[in-house]
């Protein structure tokens, strides 16, 4: 089995982290609306998961973060234009940051309502199966979304039809301001897999090798026609539900930052001799340059013509 490309996972995670920080600053400056649901803390596992799949396996992603798009190479400038309502984005001002899309990179968008992605991803798996494709669908959602009815309907449907779907619950313990202790009766969402007769796995969000191996295993199962898997990533939410969330409902902010998987991965790269400090520093500089270029280009893009609101409804 292939091993996890740790340096690349780190590079993309860092790119996503720095880009997201820049988006939050641009929102404070007024260039963008503060609509971001930050994914800080989730990037390493999101990117390790996608690294275990094929580059065009369709993804339906979740609210939290930009790493899904960054991992698939969607241009940063296009993402900025989507957020800023400028020409050059991917959804022509219709969906903003929530609905960045690029089917040519396997990015099939997102449901604004939680749970909505589960059912759509299930149907995509149904189409792949009927078309006898060996692609699979991966769908990321949060622990909050796993309490909605569509979770149950989708997992049961996908299991009974043996659909090629990997359901990924990114469990960071928070549904907006409500902790899992007050919303969810089980500690591990993956336990629910038993109820659908499918494998349930737990992976640690700061262990990219474990994430990679588990997704590779679930992918093999899906491609072999054996059906879906439920993978729970134990994740940490470093920031608020949205970028300007004061998080005054939360007492674990400081302890959460100690669990940040990104510096831990950097330490691992150094310890294993996969990179040295000079290489990491050069990587950081290259990322800053890449982001600065994208921001400069997005600033020059014209605002979307308001009449665009009347297009794209019907085919």
């Amino acid at each position, binding site marked *: 089995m292939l091993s996890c490309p740790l340096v690349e996972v780190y590079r993309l995670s860092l790119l996503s982290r720095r880009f997201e920080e820049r988006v939050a600053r641009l929102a404070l400056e007024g260039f963008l609306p503060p609509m971001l649901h930050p994914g800080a803390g989730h990037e390493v596992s999101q990117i390790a998961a996608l690294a275990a799949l094929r580059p065009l396996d*369709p993804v339906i992603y979740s609210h939290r973060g930009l790493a899904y798009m960054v991992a698939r190479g969607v241009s940063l400038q296009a993402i900025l234009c989507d957020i800023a309502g400028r020409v050059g*984005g*991917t*959804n*022509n*001002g*219709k*969906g903003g940051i*929530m*609905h960045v*899309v*690029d*089917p040519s990179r396997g990015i*099939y*968008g997102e*449901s*604004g*309502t939680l*749970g*909505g992605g*589960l*059912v*759509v*991803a*299930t*149907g*995509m*798996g*149904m*189409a*792949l199966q*009927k*078309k006898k494709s060996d692609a699979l669908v991966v769908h990321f959602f949060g622990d909050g979304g796993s309490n909605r*009815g*569509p979770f149950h*309907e*989708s997992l*049961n*449907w996908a299991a*009974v039809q043996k659909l090629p779907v990997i359901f990924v619950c990114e469990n960071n313990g928070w549904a907006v301001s409500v902790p899992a202790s007050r919303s969810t009766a089980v500690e591990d969402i993956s336990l629910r897999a038993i109820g659908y007769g499918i494998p349930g796995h737990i992976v640690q969000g700061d262990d990219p090798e474990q994430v990679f191996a588990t997704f590779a295993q679930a992918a093999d199962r899906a491609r072999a026609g054996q059906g879906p898997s439920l993978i729970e990533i134990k994740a940490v939410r470093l920031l608020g539900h949205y970028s300007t969330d004061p998080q005054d409902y939360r007492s674990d902010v400081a302890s959460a930052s100690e669990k940040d998987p990104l510096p831990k991965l950097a330490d691992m790269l150094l310890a294993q001799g996969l990179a040295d400090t000079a290489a990491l520093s050069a990587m950081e500089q290259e990322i800053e340059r890449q982001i600065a270029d994208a921001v400069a280009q997005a600033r020059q893009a014209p605002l979307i013509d308001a009449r665009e609101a009347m*297009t*794209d*409804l*019907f*085919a």
Partner: protein
Amino acid sequence: MTHITYAQAINRALAEEMERDENVILYGQDVAHWGGIFKVTNGLMNRFGEERVFDSPISENVMVGAGVGAAIMGLRPVVELQFADFLITAADEVLFKAGMWRFMHGGAFKVPLVVRLPSGSTGAGPEHSTCPEAYVMHSPGLLCAVPSTPADAKALLKQAIRNDNPVMYFEHRMLYQQRGPVGDADDVLPFGKARICREGRSLTIVAWQFMLSRVLEAAETLAAEGIDVEVIDPRTLSPFDWETVLASVRKTGGCLVVEEGYRSLGVGAEIGAMICEHAFAYLERPFRRLAIPDVPIPSAPALVDYVIPSVAKILQEVREVMKG
């Protein structure tokens, strides 16, 4: 030309489209092995196999949501929701996913999905009796077909399946056993073209499906009294053929909508508003609506008959409005 029932016409449209396009799949509760709770899909599983015609669990959210997912990947799913009321059970998937997935992703996808919605009361109680077309009309991104005859049922369903957009296809249960002429040819009706079922100069009446048959019956009695009504079947509510209805109102000077939905903010309310905006100067008498009063549709036949517009109520309403 053969005389077949409305249910047989739907079955024939499904069979012909599945024959024509291998991407068409059909699923829903009881549709495969049992041939549908109303027997509309009888024989299709045997003909096309369980890969393409299959039974689903009682899971309306994923039934419709998976239809959207399958549609954006190139299939043409036809989903039966057993009772049109269940449109509301799957509201997120119908209104947001089917209606908006294309729009909110900037036109990146096509959503060629058909949801078949058996509607109308057979005394099955408040949650199994409604005609919820108004919800669809109120929701951007959805098309809405309301065929009234076997010929239209077949031709509009074929159009719905070939259309690249989500179509809510209402099939009225009280019409399933009605027979009518259906051409053997591959007829497909465009959406947004109303049919003038009866020409007249006294008053325009807009009605569809089961109410249309009652209006046409009432029209015979009214003609004998010298009231010559023009009857229009819109065939599709989204898109709506405003041109035909407004032209008729400009000719007759009045309009009555007879519908099987709830009165407040129903389809009739929208038709009345459009007439006020575009043909007010031509009105010689007030616009009127005959609809379900704002109560759930009950179960007992006597109560059902009381709330659903009857031929007698249609006659009374027309006579009143013509008195001025």
